């Protein structure tokens, strides 16, 4: 009896499930699709680097090193409302099986790009809120990295808001985009982006970083830029003109701790940095349907010191120094330009590319997130990069490349004025990248 009832129930349930019409089942599918607001994608990149250093002076040691690395990331986007979109990314970068190494450079502005071991870091998490069709507010951890021409190497589309030669860090903040397209032609956007730096310390007796009593905990940083894209022209599939002014105001340099014999000496800091970066960028994508991309970037940098400097008294020197200069109130102006070209060779799946960087001795760019290990885009002097990429699949690539950096000057940062050098760094690398 019990068996019969079970069979009957099963039959009824089965009948009711199969009794759904095609329309009902399609409707269910559509509802399921509507409720699923998430989209996922990701990437995995493997690197092999062979790096050779030649210092060019007898007092410094030449060296060669090899490394294998892994970068990976998961992107997750969501559309909770028609006018609110969320974009996130968790990422990791590490050397293979690191043992006894000392190359971890974890900092908030580069954590996911620092070869920091298997930890996963937040690389992107921001929303776009369309107040109007032409006015969009963005806030969170923003896509300020991997700007053009980073994407040329693997044949991808634009990957970052700022061009590569603008500001080399992952930044949190708030942005306002005003699309001027209807007034000035095609796809002209004005953006202002506020990305303040913080150095928080909240203890019972002190609420800022320094012991000097100065309120050094916050630095206003902002960028304003114009981003103009003209698409589907006879000259190129897209022409991008980009001009940006970025200002870092009163960025506190914290107290320094240096070894002095068996003790650690504290060097009191009353030093703040004012940094400005002015970028002009022109890009021509797919010139005359030839598969050739061309990008020019020119960057002016200024480093201005403010305050009484870093006090060296505790290490036996009665002086104070600044950043990149010995003078605590010193200023240095520099500039550099980057030319980048890539050629997608027909439908062969091959991409050939080259980059050339030239900068003066006071060039003040820094490079916290790039794929390369040797701060290529921060080179003071000249840098050359050539590569060949084969697209095994459209988003599964193998790249072989060569970078050469010929330094004309370097600085040690604090207290470090320019020092002339013949230093050369060369890198041979292989890179295997999958995006999905």
């Amino acid at each position, binding site marked *: 009896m019990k068996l019969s009832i079970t069979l009957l129930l099963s039959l009824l349930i089965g009948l009711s499930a199969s009794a759904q019409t095609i329309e009902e089942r399609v409707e269910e599918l559509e509802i399921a699709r509507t409720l699923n607001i998430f989209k996922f994608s990701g990437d995995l990149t493997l690197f092999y680097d062979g790096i050779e250093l030649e210092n060019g002076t007898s007092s410094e040691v030449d060296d060669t090193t090899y490394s294998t690395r892994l970068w990976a990331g998961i992107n997750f986007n969501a559309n909770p409302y028609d006018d609110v979109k969320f974009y996130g990314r968790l990422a990791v970068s590490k050397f293979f099986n690191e043992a006894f190494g000392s190359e971890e450079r974890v900092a908030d502005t580069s954590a996911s790009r620092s070869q920091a071991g298997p930890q996963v870091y937040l690389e992107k998490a921001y929303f*776009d809120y369309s107040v109007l069709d032409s006015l969009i507010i*963005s806030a969170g951890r923003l*896509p300020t990295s991997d700007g053009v021409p980073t994407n040329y190497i693997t044949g991808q589309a634009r990957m*970052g808001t700022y061009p590569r030669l603008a500001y080399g860090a992952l930044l949190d903040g708030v942005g306002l*985009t005003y699309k001027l397209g209807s007034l000035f032609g095609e796809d002209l*956007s004005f*953006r202002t982006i506020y990305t303040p730096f913080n150095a928080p310390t909240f203890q019972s007796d002190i609420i800022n970083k320094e012991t000097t009593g100065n309120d050094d905990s916050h630095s206003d940083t902002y960028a304003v830029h114009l981003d103009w894209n003209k698409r589907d022209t006879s000259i190129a599939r897209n022409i991008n003109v980009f001009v940006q002014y970025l200002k870092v105001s009163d960025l506190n340099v914290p107290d320094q701790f240096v070894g002095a014999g068996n003790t650690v000496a504290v060097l009191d800091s009353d030093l703040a940095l004012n940094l400005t970066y002015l970028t002009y960028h022109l890009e021509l994508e*797919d010139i005359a349907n030839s598969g050739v991309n061309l990008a020019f970037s020119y960057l002016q940098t200024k480093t201005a010191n403010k305050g009484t400097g870093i006090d060296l008294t505790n290490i036996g020197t009665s002086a104070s120094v600044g950043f990149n200069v010995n003078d605590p109130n010193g200023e240095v102006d520099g500039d550099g330009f980057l030319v980048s070209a890539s050629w997608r060779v027909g439908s062969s799946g091959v991409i050939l590319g080259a980059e050339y960087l030239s900068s003066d001795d006071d060039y003040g760019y820094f490079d916290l997130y790039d794929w390369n290990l040797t701060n290529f885009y921060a080179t003071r002097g000249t840098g050359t990069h050539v590569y060949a990429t084969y697209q095994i699949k459209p988003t599964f690539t193998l790249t072989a490349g060569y970078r050469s950096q010929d330094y004309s000057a370097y600085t040690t940062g604090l207290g470090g004025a320019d020092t002339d050098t013949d230093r050369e760094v060369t890198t041979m690398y292989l890179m295997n990248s999958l995006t999905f």
Partner: protein
Amino acid sequence: MKKGLPLLILLFSVSSHAGKVDDVVTAVKEKCSKDLPKRVAAQSVKKAFLTCNPGTPVDIDGCKIDCLKKNEGSVIGN
């Protein structure tokens, strides 16, 4: 019944990608003035929306259309 099963599966497959199938058909029509059968378009959805790079051409049944995958989350307010 056996003959009807593949048709039913195809119908569900097309329905679940309905908007995207139409997008592929429209893109091919605009680019090459060609009427792409919905069945072929349904089979090309993955190629046109997933395994291509935004801004690059994709070959759909002999017609090169632009990759239909959006470049999202790269530029704020875009």
